[in-house]
């Protein structure tokens, strides 16, 4: 069939599919069902935030979830409670769940004080938030990434240890290629050769952890859909690790450059330069934290908003218009997913290379006069 004819037929089929919902819209104006309004804000925050259970889908009104355990310790009482989140997540409005004398329920996302969190109702009716170390969706996501990294990289290490000079298999080749792009591209150019062996494990780990955590957050079905790196707490810990590695292993020369740099005396007598330098040691990891968090969270929110647009417009103008929107929305969402793959790799790369640069700057030897 000629190329032009194929093109014409494809465009016609697509135009028909895109216009079908208008027919649905004509029939839709007859009945006006009373359905609950689509809550965009809680839709977005429930997907990007943390949760006590893994909600998969709803069959005939019954939710299908993977119920993760809740582990809390009540304040001024000190008793530990550990139970499946099934009990607290399926409560109706106003009910509480009683476990060994303490009453718990989960605040909805739209609440003011503790949105989405487990609270305890004390005997006098006041709410208190217990010490909460539950195994939530994000904790599950972190462990999943860790188990994946261990299962992916450790067998190669064992194979090399068993016989260093054997011909590498295809799997070993892949691991070697991945490791050397990071080692030769990120670690070696920035850290002096003597210290590479000391810092390479941390930098490699952080690169692959962030890369796979970002990628796993994009896969939309069961074990993978936890939004791990889009949370401030997790990026805070990663930035804190970089801060520790930079400052705890810093050279004497590095600390001298912060507190008594080679500048005219009037800049360091009133401690102007030292204070600026001290603040900058904190700002640099802080920027790492916010950059990773905001990039990943923004990507997730855009994808959720584009998909939620279908339901918002369907709620406002009827199901037919929602159908028309879904054609456009799906195209844009596919494009956003592709861009998110790129962003996942770039953010892991930038976090690691900036950590390497900061660590390298702290390991500099003074130039000899």
């Amino acid at each position, binding site marked *: 069939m000629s190329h032009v004819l194929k093109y014409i037929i494809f465009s016609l089929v697509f135009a028909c599919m895109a216009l079908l919902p208008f027919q649905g819209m004509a029939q839709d104006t007859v009945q006006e069902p009373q359905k609950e309004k689509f809550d965009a804000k809680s839709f977005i925050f429930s997907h990007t935030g943390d949760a006590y259970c893994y909600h998969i889908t709803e069959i005939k009104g019954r939710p299908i979830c993977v119920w993760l355990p809740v582990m809390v310790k009540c304040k001024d009482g000190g008793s530990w409670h550990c139970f499946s989140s099934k009990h607290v997540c399926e409560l109706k409005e106003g009910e509480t769940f009683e476990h060994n004398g303490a009453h718990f329920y989960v605040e909805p996302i739209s609440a003011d004080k503790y949105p989405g969190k487990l609270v305890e109702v004390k005997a006098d009716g006041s709410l208190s938030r217990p010490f909460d170390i539950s195994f939530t969706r994000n904790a599950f996501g972190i462990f999943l990434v860790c188990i994946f990294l261990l299962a992916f990289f450790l067998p190669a290490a064992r194979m090399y240890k068993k016989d260093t000079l054997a011909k590498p298999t295809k799997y070993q080749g892949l691991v070697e290629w991945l490791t050397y792009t990071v080692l030769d*591209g990120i670690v070696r150019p920035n850290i002096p050769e003597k210290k590479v062996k000391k810092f390479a494990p941390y930098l490699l780990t952080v690169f692959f952890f962030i890369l796979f955590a970002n990628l796993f957050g994009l896969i939309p079905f069961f074990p993978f859909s936890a939004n791990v790196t889009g949370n401030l707490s997790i990026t805070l810990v990663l930035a804190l690790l970089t801060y520790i590695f930079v400052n705890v292993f810093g050279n004497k020369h590095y600390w001298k450059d912060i507190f008594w740099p080679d500048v005219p005396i009037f800049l360091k007598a009133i401690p102007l330069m030292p204070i600026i330098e001290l603040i900058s040691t904190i700002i640099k990891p802080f*920027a790492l934290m*916010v*950059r990773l968090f*905001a*990039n990943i969270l*923004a990507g997730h929110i855009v994808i959720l908003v584009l998909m939620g647009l279908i339901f918002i417009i369907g709620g406002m103008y009827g199901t037919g218009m929602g159908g028309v929107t879904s054609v456009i929305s799906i195209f844009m969402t596919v494009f956003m997913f592709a861009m998110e793959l790129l962003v996942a790799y*770039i*953010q892991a*790369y*930038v976090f690691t*290379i*900036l950590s390497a640069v900061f660590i390298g700057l702290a390991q500099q030897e003074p130039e000899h006069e």
Partner: protein
Amino acid sequence: MLLSTILEAVSFVPGLVSIGAAIAIIGAGLGIGKIGQSAMEAMARQPEAAGKIQTGMIIAAALVEGATFFALAVCLLAVLG
């Protein structure tokens, strides 16, 4: 009375926040555009150095974007916090 009228009129914070976010994005667009421009010109002048130039461009773009996201985070905090 004038103060209370003014205070009543300033209840359009969500609208102002959108304008603030848009201005932050203008800054990011201009900055990353300039980075891309100089990177393209340098790569055209010396194609052998294209790999290094590309690496530097990505790092500079990520730093500028990090600053933009600071501004966006402040805007979101103003609306939600």
